[in-house]
């Protein structure tokens, strides 16, 4: 439910940001939203004020305007914050940011990949892996890499909702299922 709502706001935001006359870049908006989300996570009092029905909408809008200005937010971001606050959806800001990121990636033809390996990967392997994933997804890959010893060996790549598991742990799990099921 919240994801669907966040998706609506993010798509509307994308329409504004990707308009030819808009001076603000999508990356700028994402950075602004990251800053606001970080500020809200750091200050529960701020969230409480923004959610409180006892505080007037004008006061909330003023507060968000000041916060955005202090964080160096763009006018587009400030407007988004005001609209979201007016509709009582300020707690969905993190989801809106993530959804907006997906929309931006989609418009740029980018797919984000999370690659996990047991050992650090060589640069050459990273290039090969990104090329393979790009061919599979049909988009350019923006990959993030992390390590997990539990994999034992091999790698796991997650692109969107697809998971490609080439780890030893995954193969052992498959073997275990086969053994149990006979």
């Amino acid at each position, binding site marked *: 439910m919240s994801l669907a709502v966040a998706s609506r706001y993010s798509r509307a935001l994308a329409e504004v940001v990707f308009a030819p006359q808009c001076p603000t870049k999508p990356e700028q908006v994402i950075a602004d939203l990251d800053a606001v989300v970080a500020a809200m996570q750091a200050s529960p009092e701020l969230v409480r004020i923004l959610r409180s029905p006892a505080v007037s909408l004008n006061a909330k809008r003023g507060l968000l305007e000041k916060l955005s200005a202090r964080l160096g937010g763009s006018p587009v971001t400030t407007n988004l914050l005001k609209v979201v606050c007016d509709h009582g959806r300020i707690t969905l800001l993190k989801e809106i940011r993530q959804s907006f990121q997906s929309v931006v990636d989609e418009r740029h033809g980018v797919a984000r990949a999370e690659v996990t*390996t*047991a*050992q650090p*990967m*060589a640069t050459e*392997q990273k290039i*090969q*892996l990104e090329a*393979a*994933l790009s*061919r*599979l*997804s*049909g988009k350019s890959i923006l990959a993030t890499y992390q390590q997990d010893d539990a994999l*034992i*060996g*091999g*790698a796991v*790549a997650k692109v969107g909702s697809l998971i*490609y598991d*080439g*780890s*030893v*742990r995954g193969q*052992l*799990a498959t*073997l*275990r299922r086969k*053994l*149990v099921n*006979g």
Partner: protein
Amino acid sequence: MAKLILILVTAIVCLAQEHATPGDAHAAANGEPAHKTEETAEPIVWGLDLTVWKWINFGILMAGVGYLFAKQGVPFFQERAAGILKDISDAQKTKTEADARAAELESRIANLGDEIARMQADAQAEMQNEAKRMEAETAQSLAKVQASAEQEIASATKQAKAELSAHAAALAIDLAAGRIRSGLNEGQSRGLVSAFIQDLEKVKN
């Protein structure tokens, strides 16, 4: 009852007329007080003898009483007689029924021995039937319990086998994971990643 009262009242009125003396009648005829005639105490003879009048009076009284009795009393006594006859008839009927019942009871008492023997035989037959039914029911229940127990044992065996298989698989996998981990060097690890990349390149989108 009202009719009887009417008859009695009429009779009393008629009898009351008898107390009037001839002196009273003479005095009444002359317009003098009655007690004055009594003081003289001389019999007055006027026409017929008084006895005749008495008889005539009595005859009229009797005719009236007879008329009233014939009109009111006869139907009353007829009704009463019919009621009494009906009561007698009912009593007779009741007596006949009671006699018949008593006769039936006596007949039953006379056959009591046979009746008891028949009842004993019935009870015995019923007991035998009941015993057979219970035996069959017990056998059925026993079969059901046995089948259920067999099913339960089979299910438990299957579950135990599955658990054992899962445990053995977990042990084997853990052992394999440990061995692979300890025996895996950097080159082999890279080789695994390369193999994964090659597998991805083979996948058709």
